């Protein structure tokens, strides 16, 4: 059995005093792609935030082990440095920081060395070209005034630049038109195939999955994972919805 990259055991998460997730177990191996589906309000985003360490989401029980290290109590930045990444459903606008200087700072923190401006630019241009992003976006303030589609592309750009071991994509496809879904999906595929990156894709829509290889599918409902299956489940859900799984 290959070593697990992510090992979630009996994870319980509260937001304020309300329990949102009950006893979540999840295993992801290096390079695997997992899909997490479920109705609205099931706690999918909560799981993403809790794995990334958002302080608003309190872990009241269980553990998260990443690459053999217990990261349950680790701060957000340290989780990121350990190789975890979260693509936000609603990326924040941060005025006054350009996308490129933000990415450069993040990369330098991750690698612990200064990066030559020239090398960085080259790398950035390549990744932007792949995502069909106008170079001008690099000098614009981070997400500020970006359209919904550009924000999501900027998230995938960060994914490609930071090159984590596991990326959680929280509804990266929501609000995107057909063309944008294709481009974003292409970016994800690059991460999957050329970097051997593992993925946890949270989605409502199977469109984004069409071009991607999927290893496992999970259904989350009312704060619990109610079904684990292979890639065939995606097809089934897209045809028949969640209903059949919800009524026990």
């Amino acid at each position: 059995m290959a070593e697990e990259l992510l090992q979630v055991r009996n994870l319980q998460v509260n937001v304020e005093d309300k329990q949102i997730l009950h006893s979540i177990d999840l295993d992801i191996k290096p390079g695997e792609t997992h899909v997490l589906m479920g109705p609205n309000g099931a706690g999918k985003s909560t799981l993403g935030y809790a794995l990334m360490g958002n302080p608003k989401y309190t872990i009241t029980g269980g553990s998260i082990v990443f690459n053999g290290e217990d990261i349950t109590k680790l701060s957000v930045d340290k989780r990121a440095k350990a190789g975890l990444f979260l693509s936000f459903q609603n990326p924040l606008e941060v005025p006054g920081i350009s996308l490129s200087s933000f990415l450069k700072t993040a990369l330098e923190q991750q690698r612990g060395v200064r990066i030559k401006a020239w090398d960085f630019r080259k790398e950035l241009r390549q990744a932007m070209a792949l995502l069909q992003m106008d170079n001008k976006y690099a000098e614009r303030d981070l997400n500020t005034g970006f359209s919904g589609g550009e924000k999501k592309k900027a998230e995938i750009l960060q994914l490609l630049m930071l090159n984590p071991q596991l990326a959680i994509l929280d509804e990266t496809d929501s609000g995107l038109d057909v063309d944008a879904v294709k481009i974003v999906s292409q970016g994800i595929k690059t991460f999957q195939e050329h970097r051997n990156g593992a993925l946890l894709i949270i989605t409502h829509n199977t469109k984004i999955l069409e071009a991607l290889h999927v290893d496992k599918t999970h259904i989350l409902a009312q704060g619990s994972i109610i079904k684990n299956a292979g890639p065939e489940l995606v097809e089934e859900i897209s045809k028949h919805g969640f209903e059949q799984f919800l009524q026990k």
Partner: protein
Amino acid sequence: MEEKTFVEDIDRSLYDFRNEDKDAYRIEEGLTKEIVEQISREKHDPEWMREFRLKSLDVYNKTPMVQWGPSIEGLNMDNIVTYVRPNTKMQGKWEDVPDDIKDTFERLGIPQAEQTSLAGVGAQYDSELVYHNVRKEVEEQGVVYTDMESALNGPYADMVKEHFMMLVPPTDHKFAALHGAVWSGGSFVYVPKGVKVAIPLQSYFRLNAKGAGQFEHTLIIVDEGADLHFIEGCSAPKYNVANLHAGCVELFIAKNAKLRYSTIENWSKNMYNLNTKRALVAEGGTIEWVSGSFGSHVSYLYPMSVLNGEGAHSEFTGVTFAGHGQNLDTGCKVVHNAPHTTSVVNTRSISKSGGISTFRSSVVVTNKAKQAKSSVSCQSLMLDNISRSDTIPAIDVRTADADIGHEAKIGRISDDAVFYLMSRGISEEEARAMIVSGFADNVSKELPLEYAVEMNNLIRLEMQGSIG
């Protein structure tokens, strides 16, 4: 959660180093007629200046203390040394400046900046300039950049006499009167008609002496169609007694001329910064103020633009950062006194660890200013629950067709934004510093690169140990 730290006094070692006092001359503390006369003698004033000083002292004694801003009770004029002359004459080469003083400016990066990006530099140490130099090619364009003392006795003496404290008369307020009585140092700049100075001039003011005051006078005249960028920097080491800065800046912008006046102020936190700056702008002229206020215990600072000719324009871009023990009352004033004059005010203020930051502005449109246009925008960021931020805008319009806008916003650092940046591997401290620097980017993007970097470093210093 991780352990949180709180550091009350940040590491200001970059600015906070003191030199032993080796001054050649230090006047006794306090303010009397004898002291003023003695300063005048020491400085070899022309007769009119001696009289001007004494008249100003008279005004000072008759004028009541300012009443509107933060408390200045900790400032006792009887304890302030108004004149400290360093142990050197003004030099034109850094190698001739005494080592301890030269080291000071080297640590502040002045000679290095002069090499790379400035057209001329003036460096004041306590009460007098110790260094002044301007690039040959700029001098050849006819640009005059010299210390005020030389200007008073040189070929531009009449011009100085005509303009000196004309915009800011000693009767303006008590500290203007004080300035008139004991002023010393500062720079005189004259840019002739049509001359565009491509790279900036800079004056740096360093107050080293304990318990002293600095009262430099900056007089800049930009003649018709000319263009200049002037940068002013200031800092001081910290002492446990009050120091006072009551400088005065007078700017004259002739027809179709343009002046940008940038300041990065980083006085130590025992400083009372009661500074007065004013610009008179003629037809078609432009004044651009770029102002970063980081230091001092108490500041009163409201650069004023008098738009006196048709189509004159003023832009004020400022950021004020008030940390622990600081009460910074800053803002600006604009007087529209001619038709089609326009002004833009864009400020950000940040308060932290109990600091108080007040934005105070005044926009006046007189009945002569038909179709004047003004927009004022101020944003505040409070970094915790114990700090304070106030906005006091005043608008007085005497025409029927003015176009006036005002906008104010107060906010906090969003936890979600911090989480977002941290999720990319950036530490919490760095994430907060990035957000605050980003908030102040209205000023940093207007500054030449090295100054923008210095400003961001100052913000970073202020943000260190601020998590908690």
